[in-house]
């Protein structure tokens, strides 16, 4: 990264941190209790005002900027960061299939694209089925846990071609089209405050152009967009771990046990040391994965390992605070939930690890 890129990253960090402090911190209660409570007016406009959602995944420099912004937001709340990430990946799918101009032209949140952010890229076995009907395609079934669906104008998702169940089909589905209905906002483990819902298709008839790519390219595009998104996705996890570590450290300095500061107990220091290790892994991996330097096998393995460690670190963060860590007041429980949900970003870690092995073998390892 050159000097100019570094200063751009600093500016993005500062802007995102200011938004987190001025807007997300006061909105903390509403974010934690969404969907029971509505998000404060202006939060989404403010988020869009940051411009992070306009960054692309194509260029390494933009990915670094996106990662920096998402990491800062996630120190306070990962939910808004996940909304941005879903949109950016969906947009990357449109870019790769030459369909950017088909993105919704609405103002505000309606311009957002929704995406099943936790599904394995390019799979979608349990997603809707698709069949060709003359000049149209017809979708039936449910796309689960689509991040941003209650707000967005359209969703990018993977359907299964009814003619060949093994073949994925990448689709841009307007969420107000006849036969398309967005369910109520779902309560999820973490990232609460990122409106997420199931999208139901009942013989939804869309123009054939809604199919973004043919059978062969769909999976490739979805996986490539996800590949480019690994760094920013991991930056979300890194932001959450940093918040957890900071809270744990402050607590360990402030509180006493057995007549001495908690931080002076060796077991507490061991917990903190583990968290520092995990944060270093996540933050460094996020930065590396925003670049293109790593072979695919290493990138996937690092991504899977770092996501796992982030979830582990925040469990320790709660543990270090004892009963206080389990209560809403100290933000550690939010970190635990957000980090565990972040582990599922772009699919299961086990499947990512398996893909790493496949890539390792395909790269000619040992030959």
């Amino acid at each position, binding site marked *: 990264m050159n000097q100019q890129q570094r200063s751009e990253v600093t500016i993005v960090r500062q802007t995102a941190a200011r938004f987190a402090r001025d807007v997300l911190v006061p909105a903390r209660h509403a974010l934690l*209790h969404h969907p*029971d409570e509505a998000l404060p007016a202006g939060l989404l406009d403010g988020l869009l005002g940051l411009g992070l959602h306009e960054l692309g995944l194509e260029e390494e420099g933009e990915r670094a900027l996106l990662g920096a912004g998402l990491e800062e937001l996630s120190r306070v709340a990962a939910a808004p960061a996940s909304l941005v990430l879903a949109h950016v990946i969906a947009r990357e799918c449109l870019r790769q299939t030459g369909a950017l101009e088909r993105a919704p032209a609405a103002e505000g949140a309606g311009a957002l694209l929704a995406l*099943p952010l*936790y*599904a*394995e890229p390019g*799979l979608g*076995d*349990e997603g809707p089925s698709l069949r060709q009907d003359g000049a149209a395609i017809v979708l039936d079934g449910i796309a*689960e*846990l689509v991040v941003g669906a209650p707000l967005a104008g359209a969703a990018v998702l993977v359907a299964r071609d009814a003619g060949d*169940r*093994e073949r994925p089909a990448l689709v841009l589905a307007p969420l107000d089209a006849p036969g398309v209905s967005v369910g109520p906002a*779902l*309560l*999820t*483990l*973490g990232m609460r405050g990122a409106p997420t819902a199931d999208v139901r298709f009942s013989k939804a008839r869309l123009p054939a152009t809604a199919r973004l790519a043919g059978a062969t390219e769909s999976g490739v595009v979805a996986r490539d967009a996800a590949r480019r998104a690994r760094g920013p996705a991991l930056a979300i996890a890194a932001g959450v771990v940093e918040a957890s570590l900071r809270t744990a450290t402050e607590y360990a300095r402030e*509180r*006493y*046990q*057995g*007549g*001495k500061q908690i931080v002076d107990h060796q*077991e*507490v220091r061991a*917990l903190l040391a583990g968290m520092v290790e995990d944060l270093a892994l996540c933050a460094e991996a996020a930065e590396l994965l925003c670049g293109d330097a790593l072979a695919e096998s290493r990138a996937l393995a690092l991504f899977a390992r770092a996501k796992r460690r982030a*979830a582990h670190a925040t*469990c320790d963060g*709660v*543990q270090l605070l*004892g*009963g*206080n*860590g*389990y*209560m*809403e*007041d100290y933000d550690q*429980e939010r970190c*635990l*939930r957000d980090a*565990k*949900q972040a*582990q*599922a970003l772009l*699919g*299961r*870690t*086990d*499947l990512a690890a*398996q893909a790493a092995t496949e890539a390792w073998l395909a790269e000619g390892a040992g030959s």
Partner: protein
Amino acid sequence: MKFDPDAFAAGAEQSFAQMYPVLAALGQHRPRMLADYERVLADARRFRREHLEPSALRVELEVRRNPEYVAEDIICAASTAGFFGTMIPKTFGGAGLSFGAMIVGLEELGAGCLGLSNLLGVHGLAIATVSATGDIEGMEKVCRLLTEGERRGRPNLLSTAITEPTAGTDVEDVDLLRKARLVCEATPVRGGYKLNGRKVFISNGSIAHTHVVIMPTDKKNPVETTFAFLVESTAPGFRVGRVERKLGQKACPAAELVFEDCFVPETARLNSKALPGRAIELVLGATRGGVGAWGAAAARGAYERALLHARTHKVSGRWLIDEQWVQIKLANMWKNVALARALYVEAMLSNELFGLSQLVSGGAMGALQQRLPRAVLESQALRKLVVSRRTREALQGQIAAMEEWEVDTASAWGSASKVAGTDLGMENCHLALEICGTAGLRHDRGIEKIYRDAKLLQIYEGTNQLNRLEVFHRGVLRATARRSGGAA
């Protein structure tokens, strides 16, 4: 190997002997004990199916909207089923079963919902605490609150108030207690005591009728001056503070209890002597085994849900259950359940041999419970005999006569079971979320809830960090040293 759902459905539930081979073997020598355990398991299993599982997610959503919501319907149903009196001596109106039998029931209930299981089981801590004082009058009082209420359809619940805002782990360990930064103090006044301070995170604190409150009369010298007091929620100067918003186990409210010149009469103090460190060790040695059982419950709840998901969902066109990576994870989860259970059964049996359980359900008292008909046990004549100064002195004498290695052995097993069971429970939750993918993240599928619920098990009854040190001090150092030195 392909998974056969029909074959699975036919043998989905493990038999008692499959779940507890050690106990089944032991049952050949103590058939009555085995029959009790099997009955409790069957009752708990039925209650889980009929009441807990259909309500668990609904109750959690209610509490999420209103932290003061209480699942009264579940409490009443459990009351009808007689759960609150399980381990209470027949003389005091209970079923007279052992602490171990209750723990078997708690695993089953916990596998359905840890929060509701805690709501229905946390009174066990209060009974254990009062029992460890040897105060037979106090025991009768708290036991009858439960059993007589149960007969009316709604027990008067109990809570145990130990944790303070600046002392959580410290009040769980006698050595740490010496240096604890306590805020609570019971000042002796004419005719009784005035209690001041705040207790926090008290399970069922906001809904309990009576609280077993642990408080020193001199907070600068807590080890020598700590007593247990029975405080009714109507006592002047007592109030419930805020009810916490928690990560999980939402069905069991955790509340702040506030004491502001709260007067309690002399009779509210249990036992004339301050709580010895031994009493605290006896209580925790018993109840930590119970938390170990909840750890096994978490491991099992996660395993059962992951297995169901794997049977009914596909990835890449293949059933998850047919994927080797899933099979290996499920095998590990099954193993974790077995390990957690094996350890808490050891802890439970160790407690019946060396710990608090031998006082409550063993010895002469236990023999009476087993042999005499209920009519005799509930008669006023026997009650007078049992609730007497002589019994109190005998119980206290028994507590004092216990060898240190016995207490240490029970404590070490309790802590080991707590640490291992709850860590294995959390491990299974991680594995379940991995298998279940997106479904694991949604509240409406009930999988992420276990993850949130299980985390508390690693924290309460002393953090797992403290309990590891307990295993070291009582298991590695003391119990083994004394035994090898020929103490027993």
